[in-house]
């Protein structure tokens, strides 16, 4: 992953997406540069005046949210949501028991072969399209859990199904925020309450 995965939108001016590799990110619109600072801070170099400051990462993340978060790039002028990304998608094919010294310690999922696919999201759910395979539609109200794992996202589905997405050209952080926000909104629209937890199952209050 890279700093631009965390700062997928410029905290200063709100432009989305950001440029950058590794521990550096820059905004194509306002030219502000971001890099690793001390502690939980990032070094922010404002352009064109070159003023630099160390700003807490949490503050910058809040500014991304204040500037539109993941939604404004996904939202169309007519108010609909239409956003997509290339992913490597894999489905769980089984569970493997893990033993140690003769005792069962637990289970781990074994995932099937990863296939390149396009993940699309709208207001009601996500759709996975892979060449030569039927589209898989996952409505938000059917999703049982949403969990992140490093640079991947996993969705738990009815029928004990599990699918994992590894993002090839987009920020996993953006997708985590986006799916959580849309899922929360879908639950509210359906009168199912406020989602307070996404894993190991979606919990509302």
């Amino acid at each position, binding site marked *: 992953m890279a700093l631009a995965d965390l700062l997928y939108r410029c905290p200063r001016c709100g432009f989305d997406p950001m440029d950058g590799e*590794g521990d550096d990110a820059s905004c194509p619109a306002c030219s502000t540069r971001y890099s690793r600072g001390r502690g939980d801070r990032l070094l*922010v170099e404002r352009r064109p005046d070159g003023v630099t400051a160390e700003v807490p*990462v949490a503050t910058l993340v*809040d500014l991304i949210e204040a500037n539109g978060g993941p939604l404004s790039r996904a939202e169309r002028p007519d108010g609909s949501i239409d956003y997509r990304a290339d992913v490597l998608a894999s489905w769980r094919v089984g*569970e493997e028991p893990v033993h140690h010294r003769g005792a069962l*310690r637990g289970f*781990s999922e074994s*995932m099937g072969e990863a296939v390149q696919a396009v993940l699309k999201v709208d207001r009601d759910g996500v759709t996975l399209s892979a060449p030569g395979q039927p589209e898989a539609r996952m409505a938000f109200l059917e999703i049982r859990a949403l969990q992140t794992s490093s640079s991947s996202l996993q969705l738990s589905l009815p029928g004990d199904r599990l699918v994992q997405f590894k993002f090839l050209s987009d920020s996993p952080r953006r997708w985590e925020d986006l799916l959580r926000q849309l899922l929360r909104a879908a639950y509210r629209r359906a009168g199912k309450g406020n989602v307070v937890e996404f894993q190991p199952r979606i919990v509302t*209050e």
Partner: protein
Amino acid sequence: MPLGPYTNRTVAHVSWYGFFKLVGKGLGYSLARIDVTGRENIPRSGPFFLIPNHQSVLDPILVQAVCPRTVHSFTKSTQFASPVFRWLLPRLNAIPTRRYRVDPQVVRVALRLVEEGRGIGIYPEGERSWDGSLQPLRRGTVRLLLKAGAPVVPCGVVGSYDVWPRWSRRPRRCGVSIRFGKPLHFGKHDEKSDRERALDGAIARLARALEDLVGPDQPSGATAGLSGSPSPDGGFVTRPPKGAKTGALAPEL
């Protein structure tokens, strides 16, 4: 001759865990200047839960390397996918934890370890923090603490985000402080209704203990989503509201 005050093991009994603990210590000290406080808060015998915050992939290595007792840590099940980790992690006493469903097996293993008087490590945020702040604590984790009734040792890890944040591909050498807090005693709650009644209070207490250990300057979402929990007080730094302006949040920008 015993190896230390927390064990009656001798050199001849050093396990894979002990070996990799030494390796982890070497790795940890090569990546970070480590400062440890509160080791005396780890019970010398009997069961306990070790509950650290989670800022970096290094946290389990660093915490287990400096903890004076052996810890069996909940580890996300995806880590067991590769053959190398599938062999290694059980030898580090890792307990595979399925996060895509409520995992009854992990509860059974944890309760058995409590009966045997072992130490169990759980990262209650469920995943590394993206921005270094404390994330909301998983309710299921705290339910398990209430069911088991063993002492809970909160552990603040400060600085590992600086060494290797989640979004970075490479670590850099910085200072890391590992602070073991005083044990919390929630009591044993056998009945589900008792656990539910005690849940919000226990989450708030544990979150506050972690907040105190990681320092007041760390922003927190640890109590987010609590129903009926006390309002954040001096120990919590409130995140700014959605829609706040850049200048108000970060005047330097």
